[in-house]
């Protein structure tokens, strides 16, 4: 560990600082850049995001630096998640260009909100302090509330934003209350210290505080990632929000929620001794995981709107990821991360295609509109099928490798029952994912439906996702090695 200055390592907070500055700059520039040049803002955003990625790799790198009274910690975990957030945001920005043009959204606001949300996520992943964690979470959430309802004249979007806000704030209160209890139990808001207090509780009379705090914190983050029964907001918000925002929401914030939960795992409040405060966490988490994936998949079957279906599918996927949390080993954090990368690629790809096809007023979201797509846009249908298969968890795709890694850890931990529930859920999910394939390939084209042209930026993003999905699906060796190295396995 090399600390350059006694209190603050400015290099170590450079990425965050840069993102914050970028948000502000874009917001200001948005006031001056003329409408017809608004793409500049997107390009600028992407450049900013990329620079912040570059910072992750500068010099000796950030690995190992801790600063600001342990409020910023750069370990392999935070680097990896930051990378995921920033890259997914960059992809979203690229996807957003046609949306911003079409919907007449104020570009400065829009892009800066995206960047602030990204900053929030980065803060969540790079800290071990509950305060910063909370701040990051709120920064991200508030930005997302606005993004969800950014198309001001769309009542669905407004409704989505409102529901998101009310539910989000509601859950934040629970999270806060939980943090308060944890603070009360341990006298600290820093997870490292909390972990070290685990064995000697200073509040003898209030020893219920720690487990209660942990439980409420779990609920708080569980809300963000969409664990059943805290998932109710997801379908409505995902459906109502503009598709590109949904794309963004389904990836980064979810990953951030899992990053926060995984941070608990890595640092200790849930592990190493599995039964903090005599609570068998694994059973609770396993129950939540099983419930989440099952409910998500079951309701997804009944959907006819593809966006809503993908929303439920994202709930189910949260359930799969939870399997990694149950196993609670450093290796399973690697598996979670790999899954999030895979999920980022396939979900981004799938949503991007839905986004490109949705047409005016979201009418293109009905499953029926995909009838015979394979014979109108063969390439697009093929690629969409690949993403859907990946979401199902078919081999040769990143989705399979992701699930495989998760289940592998779970089996190692002896959670065979949970794994069986999970694989059976995959089968159930195959039904609704493949139903889209059925509509695309096995029905004759509906000639009354015109398929919009695919913007080149969307095509580019989709192509990148496709390459990623296949590459990580077939040859995941390289990335697994990097992840394990950085996660310290």
């Amino acid at each position: 560990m090399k600390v350059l200055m006694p209190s603050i390592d400015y290099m170590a907070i450079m990425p965050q600082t840069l993102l914050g500055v970028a948000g502000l700059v874009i917001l200001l520039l948005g006031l001056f850049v003329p409408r017809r040049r608004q793409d500049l803002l997107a390009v600028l955003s992407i450049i900013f995001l990329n620079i912040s990625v570059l910072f992750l790799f500068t010099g000796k790198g950030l690995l190992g630096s801790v600063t600001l009274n342990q409020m910023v910690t750069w370990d392999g975990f935070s680097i990896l998640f930051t990378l995921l957030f920033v890259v997914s945001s960059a992809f979203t920005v690229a996807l957003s260009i046609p949306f911003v043009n079409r919907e007449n959204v104020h570009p400065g606001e829009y892009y800066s909100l995206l960047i602030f949300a990204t900053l929030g996520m980065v803060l969540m992943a790079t800290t071990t302090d509950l305060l910063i964690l909370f701040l990051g979470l709120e920064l991200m959430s508030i930005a997302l509330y606005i993004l969800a309802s950014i198309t001001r004249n769309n009542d669905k979007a407004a409704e989505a934003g409102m529901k998101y806000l009310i539910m989000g704030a509601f859950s934040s209160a629970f999270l806060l209350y939980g943090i308060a209890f944890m603070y009360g139990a341990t006298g600290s808001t820093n997870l490292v210290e909390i972990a070290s207090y685990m064995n000697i509780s200073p509040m003898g009379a209030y020893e219920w505080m720690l487990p209660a705090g942990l439980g409420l914190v779990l609920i708080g983050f569980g809300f963000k990632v969409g664990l059943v029964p805290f998932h109710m907001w997801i379908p409505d918000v995902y459906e109502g929000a503009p598709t590109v925002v949904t794309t963004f929401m389904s990836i980064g914030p979810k990953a951030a929620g899992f990053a926060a939960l995984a941070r608990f795992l890595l640092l200790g409040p849930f592990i190493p001794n599995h039964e903090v405060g005599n609570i068998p966490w694994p059973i609770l988490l396993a129950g939540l995981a099983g419930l989440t994936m099952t409910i998500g998949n079951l309701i997804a079957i009944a959907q006819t709107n593809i966006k809503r279906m993908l929303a439920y599918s994202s709930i189910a996927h949260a359930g799969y990821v939870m399997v990694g949390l149950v196993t609670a080993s450093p290796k399973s954090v690697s598996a979670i991360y790999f899954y999030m990368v895979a999920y980022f690629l396939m979900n981004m790809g799938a949503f991007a295609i839905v986004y490109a096809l949705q047409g005016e007023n979201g009418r293109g979201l009905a499953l029926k509109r995909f009838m015979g797509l394979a014979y109108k846009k063969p390439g697009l249908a093929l690629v969409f099928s690949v993403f859907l298969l990946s979401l199902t968890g078919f081999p040769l795709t990143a989705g399979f490798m992701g699930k495989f890694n998760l289940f592998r850890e779970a089996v190692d931990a002896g959670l065979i029952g949970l794994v069986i529930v999970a694989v059976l859920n995959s089968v159930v999910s195959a039904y609704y994912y493949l139903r889209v394939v059925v509509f695309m390939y096995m029905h004759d084209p509906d000639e009354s439906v015109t398929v919009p042209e695919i913007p080149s930026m969307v095509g580019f993003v989709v192509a990148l996702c496709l390459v990623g999905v296949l590459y990580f699906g077939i040859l995941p060796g390289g990335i697994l090695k990097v992840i394990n190295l950085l996660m310290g396995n």
Partner: protein
Amino acid sequence: MEKFVWLIPAFPLIGVLINLFFGRWTGKKAHWIACLAVLGSFIVSLMVFSRVMQGETLNYDYFNWIWVGSFHANAGVLIDPLSALMLIVVTGVSFLIHVYSIGYMHDDPGYPRFFLYLNLFVFSMVSLVLANNFLLLYVFWEAVGLCSYLLIGFWFQKKSASDAGKKAFIVNRIGDFGFGLGIMMIFVVFGSIQFTEVFGMASGASVACLTAITLLLLLGAMGKSAQIPLYVWLPDAMEGPTPVSALIHAATMVTAGVYMIARCHVLFNLAPLTQNVIIWMGMLTAFFAATIALVQKDIKRVLAYSTISQLGYMFVGVGLGAYTAGIFHLATHAFFKALLFLGAGSVMHAMANETDMWKMGGLSKIMKYTSWTFLIACLAIAGIPPFAGFFSKEEILGAAWSAHRYEIYALGILTALMTAFYMFRVYFLTFKGTPRYNVHSHHAHESPWVMTFPLMVLAVFSVIAGWVGIGTHGGSWIHQFLNPVFTLPGSEHMAEAGHSGSEQLLLMGIAIAAALAGIGLAWQIYLKDIKQSDRMAAQFSGLHKVLTNKYYVDEFYDAVFVTPIKNISIALWRGFDAVVIDGTVNGIGWFVSIIGQLLRYFQSGYVRTYTTMFVIGVIAVLGFYLTR
């Protein structure tokens, strides 16, 4: 000898291939290939026979066929007096019938196909006879069954023909079910399926084992040789062209069961229970088939039941341990029964395929050759000396007598009486009396020489073939020829020798008397006063009805096996498969989607529902602590 034995099956096989691939070109000349091929086989068989006469035998494997683990089945031949004799009979009769078919099938559109099938049959049959192990025997056993299937259903446009073919195949499969199991049991018990090896070890096996094996083998023989209870296919098999009936369903294939039992006599000798079963089965078959034959109107049906009946005799013979007698009867029967069928075919040819005897009569004036040869055959089957059937039948009955199975003997004599009766009934109704058909519309005519020539040859053999059995105490030529086969281990059970000369003469007398009585009765009823038959039918109307309907056995099988199995199958399909199994499978899917639909209602769209669910979740999670 192995250098040329393989030619016997090879010739007809080549015939098959030529007519198969070049049938379009051979067309109406298909018979040249087919007949020459069988003639070739016959000549080679004669060569083999002459070698065997000199005491030569052969047991030679051409190649390894199925070798798995310790199970070794080869493609090999076994030549001994038994197979040599069979070869002569099979190829000889086959050749004649091939020739006959040239004329009989002349106008049939499926001419090359017919000869193809015939050749295929000859190939299979000679291979069956040549086989040197059980599996190979089984292979050609099934192959002849296939040929039988194809030939019965040769006129496949007729539903009755294709039904009959299918019935034949399936009933035979039931027999083969046992045969196959028998072979497997032989392998399990002896570790080999080579005839020589198995027979060499036979005495080491327990009686129970051997009884089981032989009973299973017998099931196969029952199917193939049309014995009770599996005889039902043979009468229906008459749907095939008449030469086919002559060749396959009278002369050769159906005797395969007898041949097989004779071949395995070592095993059967060691299983007295099985032998007893064979005797009774054979005798009852002979008897009941004869009773049915008494009243049939269809000339071919009578002959079919007569075949079943005669096969019953053969089974009685082999069951008694008188294998030579059985085989002897097999050989003589081949000649005269082929002759009978061909004669019947000749009549049908003349009568535009009419088979109802009540629409014939007085044909002897028009069809001299046919009529005379038919008479010879009738005499032969009735058992009038010096015709062939007398000697062979006499051997079997004599064996029953000397084995002190008097009940069998009595039934045998009774059956012989009936045999003579119904055969001469056929003869009188067909050839004698006054024509009962429209003489002007039917242009009855004698058949061409390609048809009558085989009749004459067969007639000659129907006379002289029996003479090889002249002699006492097993001293006849046939006994001496076959002795090397049947006096291998276990010959002490042989029951053939043992009655004195005077006794023999007495027995002969009884047999001849029975035959003559039968003939006389037939003359009385069907020639002298043909109205009498109707009166008798009316008098015994119940019995007559039962007999005409063949004891309702087909109906019984239909009601007890065919219909229930079909109904069960439909129930399994529509009830069990579609409802229970598939219902479960689809039910799971349905259940899952219904649950999904129900769960949607929780997603009401109201924020308060969401907060409520959230709080319930909180309570659940926190409650999880409290209960811990």
